[in-house]
């Protein structure tokens, strides 16, 4: 760093706004027009606003009316280093990137000369215990690829890794029938979110609206602990809750009608309400999956890449042995899963396969993001800023208990959330925060989640806290 008084964020963004600017009420006149135009051809009813990305800088997102918001939602937790990060601009303009974009390879058939190097960058930040990766395109895709790996692994354990398929299998599979297309399951948890394609939606249990009217696999869900807050005051009750939930997991592993090839879990259930669980719960889960011969897949799509204070959130748990697969997407821009057991690679080529097998353009970006996070120690910085922010929020929660219940995410850097009494109050709060120039998102029905970038610093935290106080004090 050139000068000790310049923060990482200031180093990246010397021109970052010093405060939000609100020039119109939301939605402004230009925004309405732009949203209508888009909605005619592309369903944009979920639009918060139409953004001007060229003008957005660092932690600030600008809309078409010129409002500049401090962004603690960051594209649903997927902007790692701030808008228009200069290091990423360099990467985007590099020859390597240009080639990746205009010569997009079928990576499984025609890997490029630089593929190994690109993957090596991803592996430099692999979770502890993982040394291989398979690439996908989104969080849902990453999870489903991991499911496929788990199912092929499970059957190969039964069949023998190097054994061939029976005629019965190869014939029945073409009719979508067992034994070729076996009855196997992935176990997930209540309130979990793992994506919205058909198998991932079958493991998603967050909200009905995510799943309604879609056929699904009849796969089991266990219960995820529901802790009482503050944690320090409810130790015994929460330990009991861990035991209760682990017993449910074990019972399902023993009794579910079809074998459970893998158990899938988020380190913090994010869409489902930022639900946390203890190290003991996760170690218990690791133990019980080993006992019953199921794989453990940790879904780090939202939690990964620094925001919890470690590069991967499950590293907080010190699970031993490490999980079998770890999926990623969002902030990493690329997607896929890390793993280590060579037998998680199917016994024949073309089984875990598709045209593109990932996207080198996104993988190059992921490598660059990983490198910045490591070089600038941004996970540690997020932890520092989180430790600065959390007590301030705690103080606010003490002052406005009716609007800030169950504050959670202590020692999880900026991965912080709290709850309102109900959905309508929460939604009002999210809308009102726009009037003070802060873009913030919700999760579950009644919670607020903070998902800022990794260059969100103390000065941004101060603006956020002041904004929250301004709104809550008006209630």
């Amino acid at each position: 760093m050139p000068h000790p008084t310049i923060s990482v964020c200031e180093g990246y963004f010397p021109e970052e706004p010093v405060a939000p600017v609100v020039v119109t009420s939301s939605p402004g006149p230009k925004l309405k027009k732009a949203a209508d135009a888009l909605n005619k051809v592309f369903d944009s009813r979920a639009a918060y606003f139409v953004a001007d990305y060229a003008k957005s800088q660092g932690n600030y997102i600008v809309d078409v009316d010129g409002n500049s918001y401090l962004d603690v939602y960051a594209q649903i937790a997927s902007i790692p280093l701030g808008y228009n990060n200069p290091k990423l601009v360099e990467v985007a303009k590099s020859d390597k990137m240009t080639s990746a974009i205009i010569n997009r390879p079928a990576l499984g058939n025609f890997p490029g000369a630089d593929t190994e190097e690109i993957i090596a960058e991803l592996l430099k930040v692999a979770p502890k215990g993982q040394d291989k990766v398979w690439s996908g395109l989104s969080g849902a895709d990453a999870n489903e690829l991991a499911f496929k790996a788990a199912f092929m692994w499970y059957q190969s354990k039964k069949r023998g890794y190097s054994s061939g398929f029976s005629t019965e299998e190869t014939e029945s599979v073409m009719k979508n029938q067992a034994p070729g297309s076996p009855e196997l399951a992935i176990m997930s948890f209540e309130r979990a979110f793992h994506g919205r394609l058909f198998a991932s939606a079958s493991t998603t249990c967050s909200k009905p609206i995510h799943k309604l009217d879609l056929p699904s696999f009849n796969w089991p869900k266990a219960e995820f602990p529901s802790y009482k807050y503050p944690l320090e005051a409810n130790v015994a009750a929460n330990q009991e809750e861990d035991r209760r939930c682990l017993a449910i997991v074990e019972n399902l592993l023993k009794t579910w009608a079809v074998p459970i090839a893998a158990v899938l879990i988020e380190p913090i259930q994010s869409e489902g309400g930022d639900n946390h669980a203890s190290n003991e719960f996760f170690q218990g889960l690791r133990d019980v999956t080993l006992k019953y011969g199921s794989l453990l897949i940790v879904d780090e799509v939202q939690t990964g890449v620094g925001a919890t204070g470690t590069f991967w959130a499950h590293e907080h748990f010190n699970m031993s042995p490490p999980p079998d697969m770890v999926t990623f997407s969002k902030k990493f821009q690329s997607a896929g899963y890390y793993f280590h057991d060579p037998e998680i690679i199917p016994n024949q080529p073309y089984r875990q396969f598709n045209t593109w097998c990932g996207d080198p353009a996104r993988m190059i970006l992921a490598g660059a993001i990983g490198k910045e996070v490591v070089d600038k120690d941004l996970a540690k910085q997020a932890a520092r800023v989180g430790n600065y922010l959390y007590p301030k929020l705690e103080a606010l929660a003490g002052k406005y208990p009716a609007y800030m219940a169950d504050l959670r995410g202590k020692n999880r850097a900026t991965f912080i959330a709290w709850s309102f009494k109900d959905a309508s109050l929460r939604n009002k709060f999210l809308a009102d925060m726009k009037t003070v120039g802060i873009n913030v998102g919700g999760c579950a029905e009644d919670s607020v989640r903070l998902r800022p970038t990794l260059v969100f610093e103390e000065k941004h935290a101060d603006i956020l806290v002041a904004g929250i106080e301004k709104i809550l004090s008006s209630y």
Partner: protein
Amino acid sequence: MLSARFSRVSPTLAAFRTVSKTKQAKSATAGAIAYRKGIRYNSTAALYYPNEPKKPQAVTDSIPGPVSVELNEVLGEVFDNRASYFVTDYDNSIGNYISDKDGNQLLDVYCQISSIPLGYNNPELFKTAQSKEMASALINRPALACFPPAEYANILKEGILAAAPPGTDKVWTALSGSCANETAYKAAFMYLAAKKRGSLDFSDEELTSVMNNEAPGSPETVILSFDKGFHGRLFGSLSTTRSKALHKLDIPAFKWPKAPFPALKYPLNEHSRENAEEEARCLAEFEEIICQYPPHTIAAIIVEPVQSEGGDNHASSVFFQGLRDITIKYDILMIVDEVQTGVGASGKFWAHEHWNLTTPPDMVTFSKKFQAAGFYYSNPNLQPKQAYRQFNTWCGDPSKALIARTIYQEVVKNDLVTKTASVGDYLYKELDSLFKRHPGKAKNLRGEDYGTFIAFDCANPTKRNEFLLRMRGAGINIGGCGDFSVRLRPTLVFEKSHAAVLLSAMETTLQEL
């Protein structure tokens, strides 16, 4: 496995070995001459690629060369590359020619499994990739449905939507062919349920049961696909894929129905009656399967204009019109999967335009050559009534929408669909006469009047694989499909001169077989 076969020295390799790589690095003058020639001969390839090789170039005795083999071994430690043909040097690939890391340059008629539209290192795509807009799209990737960029509507209108198949005017973007098909299935399932539900809201029973993955909230509705169809490899799409056991083994699947796809006899003009009967049989069986399901159980059918992975199986316009009529009769949606057939290669921008359907399909999915993915539609009810149902974090990728826009504009500007149709006509006729000169070695030539989307069969899988391998030895990168077919999937700037190179290599190879 494949790479092991490649490491054998090809007998024909010496035949195409030419003097030097220095030749490729021709002077700027040569480039300028080629450019003028390009204009004179109406060659888009010459305009784009003044330095494109005139024929394959070999620098090592085998393909892949030693450098490529070594790189592949290192890569294999961390990434499953057992399907790798060779390690590619994309910087040294140009236009229709793909280069391995050893510097061998092959004429590419496989093109990343049919997904390179305008050739390698296309200068117009290069400009787009280097633009400010692209940099922003890459590094400020939006959650598109929540925070769309101001310019997204125009990017769509000038690109993906300008290319919309007749009868469609909206698009939902996704990330891959599988993802495009699955989002189309989701639209179909939600549409069907909404129709049944009418003006009613979700019932409590639906809201509760869906959280247990049970009916009625998670209903037992289905998508019907066709025997030998390929629609992707995620769980919903894989349930509709019926190409090969290896694509599906060990993966749980939905118990969805499949109908037969016509197996036509070639040459078509000698088998008109039998083929008409075969299509009538398939349509009758299709209708019979539909009748086995209670009404409003089959949300949609999905069909490819040409079943590509499954062996390049064609059917006539009559068959597809028949499918359209029956789907309308039973109130079932029709999804046309143009992932491999779309974007010009068939001699129409969208292959299903060959059919002249009386009612357009309800949804058309795309990916591959368009680089962007998604589905087109027109019925506003295919957008679920509530927001956040057809939804995910990214809802597509603006960087790919930018590339798709340039692809579309270049295709139009250079009239590449018409040109592909005419190159295809030439190629088809030449292949026809080539195969007649070598009877018994290649048969069932198909894809007449279908651009360069041409395929043929070898006697059996072993012969097919040998043919592919020998072609590679002769400097042609070429792919198979089905069990014993060869498919041609060149770029849209594959011209008569390239076809001549391909034909001459095929002539030699067939002689040797």
